[in-house]
């Protein structure tokens, strides 16, 4: 299987260097999220991939084609790489209409063919009615769609999205998140999304690459990286959170019933109806451990499981339970001793419905 192989170093005068070593298989798991705090070098890596910035050393190969090789002095210009880049502020050409913007990267075809390709992409992204307008007359969400249409119309081989939702207001961002995931899925292109937003990473990504201190620390399926950080640095970046693949099976009275493995949990209704695929997110501090099984109510979920591992974390104890899936709980040292938390011990884990956040995978 072909892959995107990145091994680059970009130094900044008087600043930290960005080193990225990353191999992403193309084809399966199309959306990779590059996740990390601001200043970690996420945007630098995207710009190097797009050919807008030149790494100081290293190589970039895409499916056997060399895009950059500092030793061999290969540096393909952006146009030859055929990468679609979505800028954070969308960077639409203000002097061109939406139609001209979308058609800008359509090359090597006559006028009629270009108009037809633009119309096809526009109707796919629901912006056909906007074609005669100028970017100044569009709302934030519309600009985002137009920018995506412009990138897709150029028929790229790889799509790069730099904080695609960050410039939008909160309601628009929430509405567009699922739609963007759907568009990326249908486009069937390998995509790399840069974000520092955990919900965005969960909603958009298939694969997560965690970037911290200028280096790629861990790569894996999104919920795995969130649930099982490889080291302390990654854990600090992603936070201590359980991210459980879930399915919404019912919704009533502002609550949603979700299936996690074989267990059924009550959570707050995420709002938008649609696809049942979701992640249930629970902060480890919100998992309460008890010895005796208590009566479960709609507001209180109860799971039973056996302790798999225990680790001290400052004044707290981090206990991992096997409840059919892995669940991490952070409890005080005091209660850990009282409950006799040790590998093999059977315990009940209690989670309030409002402590479970549902992130839908698409609209």
């Amino acid at each position, binding site marked *: 299987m072909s892959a995107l192989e990145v091994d680059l170093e970009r130094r900044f005068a008087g600043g930290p260097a960005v080193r990225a070593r990353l191999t992403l298989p193309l084809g399966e798991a199309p959306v990779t999220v590059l996740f990390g705090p601001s200043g970690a070098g996420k945007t630098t890596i995207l710009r190097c991939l*797009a*050919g*807008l910035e030149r790494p100081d050393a290293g190589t970039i190969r895409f499916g056997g084609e060399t895009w950059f090789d500092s030793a061999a002095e290969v540096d393909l*210009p*952006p*146009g030859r790489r*055929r*990468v*679609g*880049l979505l*800028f954070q*502020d969308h*960077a*639409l*050409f*203000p*002097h061109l209409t939406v139609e001209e913007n979308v058609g*800008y*990267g359509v*090359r090597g075809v006559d006028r009629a063919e270009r108009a037809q390709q633009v119309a096809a992409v526009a109707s796919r992204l629901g912006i056909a009615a906007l074609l005669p307008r100028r970017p100044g007359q569009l709302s934030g969400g519309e600009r985002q769609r137009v920018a995506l249409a*412009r*990138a897709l119309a*150029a028929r790229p081989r790889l799509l790069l999205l730099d904080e695609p939702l960050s410039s939008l207001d909160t309601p628009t961002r929430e509405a567009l998140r699922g739609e963007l995931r759907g568009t990326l899925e249908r486009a069937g292109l390998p995509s790399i999304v840069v974000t520092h937003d955990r919900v965005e990473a969960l909603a958009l990504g298939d694969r997560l690459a965690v970037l911290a201190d200028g280096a790629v620390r861990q790569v894996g399926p999104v919920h795995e990286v969130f649930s099982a950080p490889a080291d302390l640095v990654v854990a600090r970046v992603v936070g201590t959170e359980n991210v459980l693949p879930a399915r919404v099976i019912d919704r009533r009275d502002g609550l949603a019933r979700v299936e996690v493995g074989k267990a059924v949990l009550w959570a707050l209704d995420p709002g938008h109806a649609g696809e049942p695929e979701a992640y249930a997110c629970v902060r480890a501090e919100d998992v309460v451990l008890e010895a005796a099984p208590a009566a479960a109510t709609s507001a209180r979920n109860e799971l039973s499981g056996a302790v798999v591992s225990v680790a001290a974390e400052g004044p707290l104890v981090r206990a991992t339970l096997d409840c059919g899936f892995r669940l991490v709980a952070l409890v005080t040292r005091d209660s850990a001793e009282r409950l006799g938390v040790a590998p093999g011990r059977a315990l009940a884990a209690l989670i309030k419905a409002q402590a479970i956040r549902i992130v839908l995978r698409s609209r």
Partner: protein
Amino acid sequence: MDLAALRLSFALAALTTVALLALGLPLAQWLATSRSRARPVVEAVVSLPLVLPPTVLGFYLLVAFAPRAPLGRGFAALLGHPLAFSFEGLLLASVLYSLPFAVQPFAAALSRVDPRLVEASYALGAGRLETFFRVSLPLARPGVVAGAVLAFAHTIGEFGVVLMVGGNVPGQTRTLSIALFDAVEQLDWAAAHRTSLVLLALSFAALVATHALQPRSSTSR
């Protein structure tokens, strides 16, 4: 009113403006985007005619135009006549003299073009030239038009350089401002008034056009 002088001034200003668009735009784009260490030096050379007495520029050009000087000899071989006191010599002098009036507004407008838009164009497969003509130039258009208008008006009004390298050959180098000087010398006040009024009206119209073309605020970009 010296119609030949009016025609000549217009022809000179029009050709100078065209030459400044052709030479000045690439130079301005380089000034707007280059990180070269030579940039301040080039900027100073371009701005020099703003502060240099026109007679100094004219004197050095006259020296360079001399039939024995390399520039003068090359052009004389090409044109069949010497550069000094010819229309071609005047055109070359005008281009140099009006250079800052065109290149400075060009460069200012081009450097205000959002670099993200230029990068977006590259990412969509456009090369440097295509990006310049489809993105940078259209976005910098008000500044480019303003620079062209200023260069045109400035060329119409130039006097010192024309006198030094052009002299006063009717139909060849006798421009409006020279004709005005002549009229005053001959105490022909009526002709001087007519010529002055034309020059005043042209300059005023040029400035109105330039200010009307400036973006009113940073948001209207």
